[in-house]
């Protein structure tokens, strides 16, 4: 099964997370991780969804998502065109001096040390984080928490601009939507 990442712009309205979660559950799409947060536009939130697709084309998932009225835009984030990261916090038994060498070459730091345990914070790709956890397992991992993945397209293009062009909202005059408020 291949992993794929979708970035989804949604209206910042109540229930939108439930709508997306409900859609995935009802259609049988497996989510590996989902991260939601604010964007540069206070009315818009951005979801980054990492999927494990089995038998469902990504096009079909995107089309179903796009049917949700609160979903504004969708884009697939491929490895070559996007920067993608996850945040990991790890509680490890041991002294920082002993642990530090194992963190060499990783985007990780020890952010707290007390009671004989250290908290390590790392920001990296899922693959690198897995490698780090593997390296630290000899110290005894007491607790682990990891965020969903977030991603941003490389270069000057933005998802919001892309969406505005695709949906015709870049030109603010809408043609078909004006007349239809009468039944």
């Amino acid at each position: 099964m291949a992993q794929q990442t979708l970035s989804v712009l949604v209206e910042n309205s109540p229930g939108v997370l439930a709508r997306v979660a409900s859609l995935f559950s009802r259609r049988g799409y497996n989510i590996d991780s989902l991260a939601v947060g604010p964007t540069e536009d206070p009315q818009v939130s951005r979801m980054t969804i990492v999927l494990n697709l089995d038998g469902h084309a990504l096009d079909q998932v995107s089309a179903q998502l796009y049917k949700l009225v609160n979903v504004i835009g969708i884009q697939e984030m491929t490895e070559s065109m996007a920067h993608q990261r996850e945040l990991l916090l790890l509680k490890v038994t041991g002294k920082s001096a002993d642990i530090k060498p194992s963190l060499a070459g990783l985007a990780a730091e020890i952010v707290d040390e007390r009671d004989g345990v250290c908290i390590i914070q790392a920001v990296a790709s899922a693959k690198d984080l897995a490698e780090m956890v593997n390296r630290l397992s000899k110290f005894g991992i007491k607790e682990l928490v990891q965020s969903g993945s977030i991603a941003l397209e490389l270069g000057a293009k933005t998802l919001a601009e892309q969406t505005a062009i695709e949906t015709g909202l870049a030109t603010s005059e809408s043609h078909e939507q004006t007349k239809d408020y009468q039944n």
Partner: protein
Amino acid sequence: MSNEITGAQALVKSLERAGVDVMFGIPGGAILPAYDPIYDSKIRHILVRHEQGAGHAATGYAQVTGKVGVCIATSGPGATNLVTPLADAHMDSVPMVAITGQVPGPAIGTDAFQEADIRGITMPITKHNYLITDPLDIPKAIAEAFYIAGSGRPGPVLVDIAKDALQKMTTFTYPKRAELRGYRPQLEPDSKSIRDAAALIAESTKPVFYVGGGVIKANAAKELLKLAEVVGAPVVTTLMARGAFPDSHPQHLGMPGMHGTVAAVTALQKADLLITLGARFDDRVTGKLSTFAVNAKIIHADIDPAEIGKNRYADVPIIGDLAPIMRELAPAVEQEFKKRKPDLTTWWRQMNSLRSTYPLGYNEPSDGSVSPQYVIERIGQLTGPDAIYVAGVGQHQMWASQFIKYENPRSWLNSGGLGTMGYAVPAAMGAKVGAPDTPIWAIDGDGCFQMTNQELVTCALNDIPVKVAIINNESLGMVRQWQTLFYKERYSNTDLHSKRIPDFAKLAEAMGCVGLRCESKGDVDRIIKEANSINDAPVVVDFSVHRDAMVWPMVAAGTSNDDIMIAKEMAPDWDSQEL
């Protein structure tokens, strides 16, 4: 401020501005503030006997008129009683707006009396829904609800409004235009896909039009007729599309699917091209998907991009409104045909052979009882194609689709996707309200009828003279048929004893209707004519029919369309067919 009104008044004004002329509902605690301005409104409110009836009535009204149907209910049980009609409308793409009252804003989430999270409950069965707690938001939500319900692929929208939002004072501004950032249905097809489709059609020697309910939703029957005649290919109309193409047309092979005609099912199976119009490759049409139309290329035209490739890969997808799609496709095909026009003679010879060898039919019962197919066929023949027929779900529904001849769109209503038993009586009520001058026959089963017949009281009291034919085989007939075929005739819990109890004619009389009974073949015509002559009251006819009649042909669930049976353990004689 003098120009302030209550949220409830804003709601009713918004409904008036949205063009609502009728709504079906029942008041209750949380929605009560809205019923006060409804008392003064020009909108006709029809007080139903159960909220499910309100929902299906709104659906019937919408399917007949093409407008958005409206139902209204209170919080909690009032709202949850709308769940079935909402799911039904969602599956069959019916434009509907449901208004529900909710407990007051501060009480939401406290498990208050008659509280149910109806927005959460209906998320997967509505096109969109709203929970409104601020009266200022009411006009915008109503305007958006009607726009979303009626545009693109139609569907139900629920607007849940907290009681205190209905009571509070607010200013009223009805928005002039939609500002929905995430909702912009594509109506105009892309010209390249039209050209690609025309090219495929010009290459095909075994094309078939696979016509779904979308053609009716798009009001595109005329465009279909033109396109079909340009292409000259066989046409099949699904259960949701009956009436989209005239049954009398020589290109029409009937309905495909589980109980489709041998010709229609085989046409799809043997085609080299399916011209799919507003259909969604439902399992009841495709049978076992991996064996469906294996040699066919697919043109798939639909307004909903998510239907493309959902069940079957589309070689040429066309996204947009079917009316402009077909208007553009017809001349594009004519253009292609000037270069090369495929010869469909062999294909038609094969189809005509199947059509004449395996017409729809039925056997007369040997015990002298009345055959249900005969009753339904005669209702259609004696009432004619300008009437509207509304079925419940089960054997009678399939027979009504098979043996009544449809010539016009919106003359056949049924619950196709959800398969909602109990749909017929309330949907017929809504249909009659939408088309008061058209005869409406509900073709119902004795099982279905007992689920929702209370709405006949509503019909009797509100001058809604529908006609109901109960095809009474004293059992849950379709389930019984499956027990006959797949469960060794072990009739577990399908015997309804409804020739003894209830007495349907008396029940009808008790509800203010005319109750008639028909027990012999010789009386069928006379009683149908009598029912057709009564136009000042609802009529219920209890047609006592043979209980062992079965729906044929049949493609058993989960099997291939290639294994279609024309009777029990009887397949078509394929060897005698040139295919």
